[in-house]
């Protein structure tokens, strides 16, 4: 603290708290502005207010928030109250805000553990300041292309971030050829997690042919450019890849799912960790949540914490903020599931079309900066999955790019009478519940924030920043 003026720290933390207080006063859950005001006073404040803490960082394209939420539950199961940026403000400013608000005015952290969700591009700024013990990379898909340009660029951003903290244990998805390639470029210790050739993967209805023609984010060997062979796919480009030309292929992970039984509400899985088999119940449906669960478990193991606490808490895990969240309005069950890229969206549509009960779907598409201005990815999504599903009774489109979504559905052969475009969120709320069928809302990021505020006030629920432990208390 010698060269680092205590006065500057004081000012930075003070500014952060003041901004936060003012924003709350005006009833806005602003989560990055406080951090920005702290940063204007002290660029390295984050290094000070995180000193000495045990930190797990979660990055990657899909599943960051759910993975963090699972980790937080496991910490709480272990009697530890960790710091976490639950609201999804995952850039340097938002992370700084969270840490600064949980420190004393002289800059000492009040908590000893932290779970940090970090944007892929922000990792290289954040990691050297907070020096995490564990970094999890969940997967890499195309996402918000106009912000990063290209997926290889994102991969390089992550690699740079990791190389700045060579002590940190890396937890990597062995089934993602892009993510797994990080292992060979850095000196960090590596711990792989993945899903093996399970019954689910073998029964995967997509034939090799269909997989072939669907857009893939990683078709060619990242080392030599030859097309990969796959012994199985779990979803999108994830699975048992191997290059027929060089020796790059999926590594047998330290932590591997060997069997999956799934219902529409939960999954029962068997995991091999080193040489032991453990049975785990995950309180969430869908394959991508199994990936989230094993990413969390891998991080928990790597941080040297008690595996059993994680396993116990996974059984009771409920969806995290906005990712898959339930509301009741007008006596109708409403589920909100964040979708922001083709792979995640296709998974969600698979889930809807497997429900076998009547429902209403709501597609909300915004093109604000946090969503990515380029919305052409909706044409890489198979909306036909719900258009052709006889149980899908109506589809509402909303958001700043609702008109584009309407065209997408038209060219997917949707019947015009089944599609309604409603731009006002208030009107949407009453219209989508009028058929008294369960409603599934699929918004992208800023659309979700807006809808959540409206649904929260309509159903009398707290806004997320008022209740950091919301996930555990409410369910």
């Amino acid at each position, binding site marked *: 603290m010698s060269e680092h003026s205590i006065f500057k720290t004081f000012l930075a933390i003070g500014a952060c708290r003041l901004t936060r207080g003012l924003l709350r006063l005006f009833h806005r859950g602003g989560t990055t502005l406080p951090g920005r005001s702290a940063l204007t006073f002290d660029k390295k404040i984050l290094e000070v207010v995180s000193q000495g803490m045990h930190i797990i960082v979660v990055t990657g394209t899909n599943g960051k928030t759910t993975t963090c939420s699972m980790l937080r539950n496991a910490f709480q199961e272990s009697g530890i109250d960790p710091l976490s940026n639950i609201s999804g403000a995952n850039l340097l400013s938002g992370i700084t805000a969270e840490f600064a608000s949980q420190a004393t005015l002289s800059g000492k952290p009040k908590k000893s553990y932290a779970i940090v969700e970090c944007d892929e591009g922000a990792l290289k700024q954040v990691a050297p300041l907070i020096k995490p013990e564990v970094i999890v990379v969940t997967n890499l898909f*195309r996402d918000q*292309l*106009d912000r990063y*340009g*290209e*997926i*290889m660029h994102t991969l390089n951003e992550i690699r740079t971030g990791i190389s700045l903290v060579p002590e940190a244990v890396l937890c990597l998805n062995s089934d993602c050829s892009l993510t797994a390639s990080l292992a060979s470029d850095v000196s960090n210790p590596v711990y792989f997690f993945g899903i093996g050739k399970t019954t689910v993967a073998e029964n995967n209805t997509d034939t090799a042919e269909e997989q*072939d*023609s669907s*857009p*893939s984010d990683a*078709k*060619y060997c990242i080392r030599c*450019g030859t*097309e990969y062979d796959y012994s199985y796919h779990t979803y999108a480009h994830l699975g048992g890849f191997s290059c027929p030309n060089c020796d790059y292929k999926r590594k047998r992970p330290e932590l591997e799912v060997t069997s999956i039984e799934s219902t529409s509400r939960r999954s029962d899985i068997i995991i091999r960790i080193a040489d032991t088999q453990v049975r785990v119940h995950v309180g969430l449906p869908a394959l991508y949540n199994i990936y989230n669960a094993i990413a969390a478990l891998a991080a928990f193991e790597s941080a040297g914490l008690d595996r059993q606490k994680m396993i116990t808490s996974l059984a009771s895990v409920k969806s995290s903020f906005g990712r898959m969240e339930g509301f009741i309005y007008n006596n109708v069950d409403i589920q909100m599931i964040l979708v922001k890229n083709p792979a995640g969206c296709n998974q969600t549509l698979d889930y809807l079309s497997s429900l076998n009960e009547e429902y209403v779907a709501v597609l909300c598409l915004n*093109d604000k*900066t946090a969503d990515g*201005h*380029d*919305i*052409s*990815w*909706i*044409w*890489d999504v198979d909306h036909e999955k719900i258009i052709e599903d006889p149980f899908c009774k109506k589809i509402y489109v909303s958001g700043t790019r609702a*008109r*584009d979504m*309407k*065209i*997408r559905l*038209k*060219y*997917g*052969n949707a019947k015009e009478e089944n599609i309604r475009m409603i731009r006002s969120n208030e009107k949407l709320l009453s219209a989508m519940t009028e058929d008294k069928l369960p409603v599934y809302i699929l918004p992208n990021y800023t659309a979700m924030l807006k809808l959540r505020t409206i649904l929260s006030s309509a159903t009398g629920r707290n806004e997320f920043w008022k209740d950091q432990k919301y996930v555990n208390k409410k369910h």
Partner: protein
Amino acid sequence: MSTKSIKICHIYPEALNLYGDRGNILCLKKRLEWRGIDCYVSEVKIGDNSDLSEYDFFFIGGGQDFEQEVLLSDLKSGKGRSIKSAVEDGKTFLCICGGYQMMGHYYETKDGNRMEFLGVANFATIGSEYRMIGDYFFKCTPESGGCEIVGFENHSGRTYLGEGVAPLGHLIYGYGNNGDDDTEGVRYKNLFGSYSHGPILPKNPEFADYLIQTTLDRKYGHVDLAPLDDSVENDAHDHMINLILKGAANKN
């Protein structure tokens, strides 16, 4: 009346498949089906050296720089020559972003490395420091239908046209070919190149029909295209143009 048909060839669907460009194929297919015109779509992938002369329409989309390198060796194996002769033959080509650049002579990176491309039409692309990203809007030349096209551009290459080729259109808002000369895309014979993702066709039905018309006319002599109800498409098209004109659209 005998049924008319169009055979579409989607080149490198497995590699040049970013940014939703496959929506263009879906759009063509539906607009032909709705008019009772048969439409067959074939995919020609890397390593597939099948005869291209049977097709009427070719589509090549955009991809990542990394994957384009994989394609170069495949193009040299003979496919490049087939593509060239199909263009000279007056077949319709729609080439977007990376697929568009590939039709030119070369791509030169910032560091001066040159990747030789097909040289089907007289233009070339040079890498730049920054990406040209955002919603944009241009007007096609009268020779290319004269319609207004709204789309999304995302490229760091700057394309400069040479003698003997025309731009597809002139910019009203955005960067276009290079950010300097207000041109966008290329037109050479029936090769249409553009930076427009979005994808370009579904939201610009007038342009989609212009391509269909061009293709049918070449194959059958003049064909009358039945009009379609494009209110959904035009609503989105006009809305975006209004946003751009009001200065409310996204630009990085």
